[in-house]
Every structure is written in structure tokens, then in C-alpha cells.
């Protein structure tokens, strides 16, 4: 490995800090939580900007799963208190359901 000169290292740090700055300006959207209680996703429908991380939390005494209808994601079985997160980066509609109790359905609209 060639040692990086001090000036180059400084420049690299400067660029990194700059990148961090832009990142902060275009901050990731607020994360969103969807509760699973009484065999129901709440809210069952919602709209979020692209890049939002959605977390499902199971409050039931029975395990549930979160499965995208288009099979783009699938959680493991979520026991009581377990959660599952998914970052939705592509605008469009995400329809999902519980793979164990398929009458449980939900929909997220991802806006650009």
C-alpha cells in the first residue's frame, strides 16, 4: 500500500465532510412505524416519500409476517414484540399481506 500524503488525506476528509453536508440537506424522510395489533396493520394504508424506512412491529400474541404481493420482500415470522424494517426507495404502490393470515392486508403509496 502506498502511504497517502497528508495533503491528499486532508482533501479526502474535506470531500467527505462536504458529502455529509449534502446528505444532511437532503435528509432521509422520517421513518414510519406500522403496528400489527388484533390481526390488523395500522395504518393499513399510507403514503410516504421515496427513501422512507418503514418498520412493522407485532403487538399480537400470535406471530405474523410481512410479505410484499410482488414478492420484493418477505419478513421472517415476527413473534410478539419483534419488528421488521424495509426501506422503500422506488415510487409506486407496495401491496403487502401477512403470509400466515392472508386476510391481513396493507398498502403503501411511495411518492417520488
Amino acid at each position: 500500500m502506498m502511504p497517502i500524503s497528508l495533503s491528499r488525506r486532508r482533501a479526502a476528509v474535506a470531500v467527505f465532510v462536504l458529502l455529509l453536508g449534502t446528505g444532511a440537506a437532503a435528509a432521509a424522510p422520517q421513518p414510519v412505524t406500522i403496528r400489527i395489533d388484533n390481526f390488523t396493520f395500522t395504518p393499513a394504508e399510507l403514503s410516504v416519500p421515496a427513501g422512507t424506512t418503514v418498520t412493522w412491529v407485532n403487538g399480537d400474541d400470535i406471530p405474523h409476517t410481512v410479505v410484499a404481493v410482488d414478492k420484493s420482500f418477505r419478513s421472517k415470522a415476527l413473534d410478539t414484540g419483534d419488528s421488521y424494517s424495509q426501506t422503500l426507495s422506488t415510487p409506486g404502490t407496495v401491496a403487502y399481506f401477512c403470509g400466515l393470515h392472508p386476510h391481513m392486508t396493507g398498502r403503501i403509496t411511495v411518492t417520488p
Partner: protein
Amino acid sequence: MNDGEQSGGIGRRGALHCMVWAGTGVLWGLSGGVPRSLGLVGEAMAAPTSGFTFLQISDSHVGFDKPANPNALGTLQEAVARIGTLPQKPDFLIHTGDISHLSKPKEFDDADQVIGGARLPVHYVPGEHDLLDDGTGQAYRDRYGRGSQGAGWYSFDSGGVHFIGLVNVVDLKAGGLGNLGHDQLEWLEDDLRGKSGSTPIVVFAHIPLWTVYQDWGWGTEDGAQALSYLKRFGSVTVLNGHIHQLMQKVEGDVVFHTAMSTAFPQPAPGSAPSPGPMTVPPDRLRSLLGTTRVTVQQGTKPLAITDSPLSAS
């Protein structure tokens, strides 16, 4: 009686609930395709039984430890111990699924150890709780699926009865109910081909094959198609689990029956915000858990179904 019952008399379901709460069971027979009630268990026990019997056990949910029953393994042990005290030893057990709660190897190990204590052959079908491993059911099939097809369906003959174990908990569709799928339906049609219409048929699967309550997903999307293949048979008995309570229905020559769980009860359809585990006072729990015994009488062919709560004397 619970509030969900219709007013203007006790319905079949209502009557069953009351009797179960009183710690009794119901025995009824099917003779020549015409079901007839044989009264309460005490009475019916006096009736001579011949032929062979088998026992249905369901929804043991080993690993479940929530308030509705902190010791699901313990109540399974009680259920198995009761099998040992039956005056006539059943020929085998049928387990209609949800053996485990989360498909963990230890849950299956514990269940096998306890159920093995009955020292009887066991015929399993999976519930949705048995297919939660990373291989979506590979663990179940490796353990219980020997000689089965597809996701674990199979048939066998015993005591002059043709038994069919179906799997309706795989590949469930959003917004839908239980699902058998094209391949299994084709297999079923083929399996029944050439069978005489006088052969008694017992079909068992986890989720009810008939729609008990659509809003809670208690039914099977393509169950009607499976039943259409069974229309020409004079005696069809459908045994299911999943809903953790007794439910019976007779439609033509077909008798539908769901078993109690050995782990925890669930509410009557629509009587609670969700079908989740129902917590009852501890002294009532064992009246809502139990097993189902089926007696096949040789010659006259009545299948007598007896439900025995754990708390029954």
C-alpha cells in the same frame, strides 16, 4: 352463551359451546349418510363400540407461552396422558397441524417427545405455524413428510376407511383464505379415481375446508373444488383444526368437524376484535382444550365423533 349467538333459540354452535363449558362432549353418528345425534358423551359411552377408533389432536402450538396458556407443552402432556386412559386404545393419531408455535427445532423435538409418549402411529398435516423455518416448510417435511407428495399431502387406507391428509397452508394469497392449489387438487382427483362410492372417506387438513368465517380467513379458497370430488361418496368426514374450538356442520353426506386445540382457545367467529388467543379464567381453560375421538363401526359404517375436553372426568 356468548353475545355472538343469534337470538331466538340455541343454534347448533351455541348448544355445543354450552355443553363444552359444562365439561361434557358430544357424540354423534353418521349412519348411511344420515347423521343422527347420539346425545351426550355419558350416554353414548354406554353404546357398544366395535371396529377401530382413531384420535384427532390439533393445534398443540408447542412453544407458546403467552397469558392465554403459559404452558402449552404441559396441556399437550395432559392430553396425551388422557389418551393412555381410554378404555379402547385408538389405532392411531391424526394431528391436524400447528404442532409447533414457531417451527423451532426444539419445539418440534418437545412435541415429538410428548406425542411419542402415546406410543401410537401419528399422521400429520402441517399448520401455518409449522412452516416458519427458513426453508418455508423444509424442516416440517424432513421430519413428518416421509412418503408424502408436494407440500406434504398423502393418503392411506385403514379399517376400511380411506384417509386423505391435505395441506392448505402453503402459498397463501393476499386477501385470501387457505389454499390447496392446482397440483394438490389434481392429485386428489387422481387419488379418488377408482374408489368405490361406498368407501368411507376421512379428509383432514389444518384450516377448515368450508368457510367458517371469511373475515378471519377461516376457510379454504379452493375447498369447494376438493369437496366436489367427494360428492359421489356416501360417507365423508372432514376433520380440521386451526380455529381452536368445536364447530360442526352437515351438508348432504359430508360431515365437517373442527377440533379443540390442546394449547389455547380462540373466540367464536366475530365475537372478539380478532381471532387471537382467548384468555379465560385458569379454572375454565381445560374445558376449552381437548382432543377428538372417532369410532368407525364395522358393517353399519357410522363414524362416531366424540370431543373430550381436558377437564372431562
